[in-house]
């Protein structure tokens, strides 16, 4: 009994110490410019969260190596984990606001972004999303919210055009998994296809959702097979994508598989197996390794030196650019006042966009990124994701 009591006390003391530890970091960060990162460090998208953290660290390091901003002030990154859930997102945002960071990179996942961007708005803090493509996010009249990534409709419009014009496919199947992101892309694709349907050049033969997290998708896939599509667009995420393509090929569905930008990555290839993943296509913002800008080459070199690899999904580099653009705005305006920064990002930046890792960065008045290009990628024989050249 005594030992148990002691153990309990020890546990309590240790947890108290941890609380203190987590707050002492706030105290130390006054002279530097602090930028927060809210991302899914744990939870189902921990893979994305880790790469985003690495990317932001590299971006901050590159700025600091060049002498920092505002004449020598260093950038310090404060990471807040939102575990990929709306509730933890609110707490993470609240924590960054309470710590008084000068701006926040937040976050991955549209449905987590929505409540947390409200917290930032109330705390008058610049927050820039890096993996949030739901169109409605910037339609709410928020003053401090921006995003460096593109929107769902851009991807849907690109797919509709590419599938019908470049690939010349007519019978189109669209599948999503009912998450905010996947359904958003699917709906935008459907909208973008209406024109082609009217012209008789396309037909949606299948439009349905699967349930994320399941292991056996045979019932949905049987229905898909009966629809006899020419091309199949899946807008969900990679864990389901990998299983779906594997099971579809076993069922004899052999039409081209096109994934949205969250479907195809290294893990997708691992889950599906290279024999099946080979030849799968993806609509995507340019992947990090194909970025042509000198800033991107410098960034990827530094990333590789530190972590031995480069980001395997397109989102983390948008996180790096979100951090870059906050730092850039602070440096240009010479101020850390959120209103000044918001005005700069919204009205001034357009005149001379910031050269970023993902190309020139500037924002529309709503807070959307100006000009995010999309491309079609393919998994090649070696399991690498490369630019797709039609006709091959």
């Amino acid at each position, binding site marked *: 009994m005594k030992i148990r009591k002691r153990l309990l006390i020890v546990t309590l003391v240790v947890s108290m110490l941890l609380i203190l530890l987590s707050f002492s970091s706030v105290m130390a960060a006054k002279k530097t410019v602090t930028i927060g990162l809210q991302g899914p*460090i744990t939870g189902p998208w*921990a893979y994305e969260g880790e790469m985003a953290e690495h990317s932001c660290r590299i971006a901050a390091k590159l700025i600091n190596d060049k002498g920092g901003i505002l004449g020598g002030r260093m950038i310090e990154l404060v990471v807040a984990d939102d575990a990929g859930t709306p509730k933890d997102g609110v*707490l993470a945002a609240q924590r960054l*606001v309470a710590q008084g960071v000068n701006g926040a990179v937040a976050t991955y996942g549209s449905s987590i972004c929505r409540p947390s961007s409200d917290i930032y708005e109330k705390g008058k803090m610049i927050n820039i999303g890096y993996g949030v493509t739901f169109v409605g996010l910037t339609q709410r009249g928020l003053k401090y919210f921006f995003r460096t990534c593109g929107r769902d409709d851009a991807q849907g419009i690109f797919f509709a055009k590419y599938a019908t014009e470049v690939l010349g496919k007519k019978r189109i199947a669209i599948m999503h998994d009912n998450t905010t992101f996947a359904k*958003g892309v699917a709906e935008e694709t459907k909208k973008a296809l209406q024109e082609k349907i009217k012209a008789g050049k396309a037909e949606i033969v299948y439009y349905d959702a699967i*349930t994320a997290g399941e292991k056996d998708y045979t019932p949905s896939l049987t229905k898909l097979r009966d629809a006899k599509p020419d091309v199949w667009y899946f807008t969900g995420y990679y864990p389901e994508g990998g299983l779906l393509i594997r099971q579809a090929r076993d069922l004899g569905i052999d039409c081209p598989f096109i994934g949205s930008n969250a479907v195809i990555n290294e893990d997708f290839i691992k889950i599906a197996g290279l024999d099946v993943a080979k030849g799968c296509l993806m609509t995507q913002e340019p992947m990090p390794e194909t970025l042509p800008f000198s800033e991107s080459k410098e960034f990827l070199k530094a990333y590789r030196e530190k972590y031995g690899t480069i980001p395997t999904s397109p989102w983390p580099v948008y996180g790096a650019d979100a951090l870059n653009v906050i730092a850039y705005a602070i440096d240009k305006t010479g101020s850390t006042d959120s209103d000044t920064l918001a005005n700069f990002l919204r009205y001034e930046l357009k005149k001379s966009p910031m050269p970023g890792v993902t190309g020139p960065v500037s924002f529309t008045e709503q807070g959307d990124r100006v000009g995010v290009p999309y491309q079609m990628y393919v998994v090649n024989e070696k399991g690498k994701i490369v630019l797709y050249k039609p006709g091959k």
Partner: protein
Amino acid sequence: MMKKNKILKKAGILIVVAIALCIFPFVASTYLVDVAFFFGIYALLGLSLNIVLGEVGLFDLGHAAFYAVGAYTTAILNTRLGIPIFVLLPVSGLTAAGFAWLVCSPVIHLRGDYLCIVTIGLGEIVRIALLNDPGGLTGGPNGVFGIDRPTLGGPLVIDTSIGFYFLIWIVVGLSIFGLVRLQNSRIGRAWNCIREDEVAAEATGINVRSLKLLCFILGAGLAGLAGNIYASKMMCVSPESFTFMDSCMYFCIVLLGGMGSIPGAVIGAAAIGLFPEIFRSLAKYRMLFFGAAMVAMMYFRPAGLWPRKRGGSGVK
């Protein structure tokens, strides 16, 4: 004489706790106040599940469904019809309670694991129904957004973290008061009797069926209240806040705290709500430590952190 002293001591502790709770938000950071708010939400959900699981011993692994019904009732009625949140507070509770009555009536005779499976199914049906956007009401995976802050329609608006903190803890306080009274009432004793031996309870003339239904209805009603407050705090609701995992968390709250124990439910909520925040500085090992802490607690206190003392109702 001894008894009077004990009561005085208890009252003293209560007053100290109440004062501490009132001072806390004014000295702590907004972040800590928000953590305390979510602790309050978990406490209310723990208390509500404690009625079903702790008092009557019915396994309910779909409690998030009632929470979701409360939250979505508030969200839909507020955004569509503009009804003030405070007016919707009782409405959400009643809707969730009515929903519980509707879905539990046909299955209430099931026992043990069988009821448990039905409640799991119920939780999933509600979540997937919300995802499928019936009648364009729930907004599918995007959920409903643009929910107001709590107000009665007048100038009194709760829109600060401190305001929400007091709102949830006043509701929790009132619930605790009511539940303690209930525990010592005829109904409470009948519930415990059903938990210990259902056949014996029926033989002594207790209406087992209606009392079981009552516990579900009350539990769901309280969860509905929690849903209302959660919805207006977040200003949006989406189905991913009401998953099976969440139901499991509420289950853990009751088990960790001690079945049927009211202070236990609050302490269990503290463990579930605060531990992930305490371990935040461990970054990606956060959930590992959270799990380890739970295992350790169950190992050292198998009956819960604050088990219910037997004999409170005069029976030794």
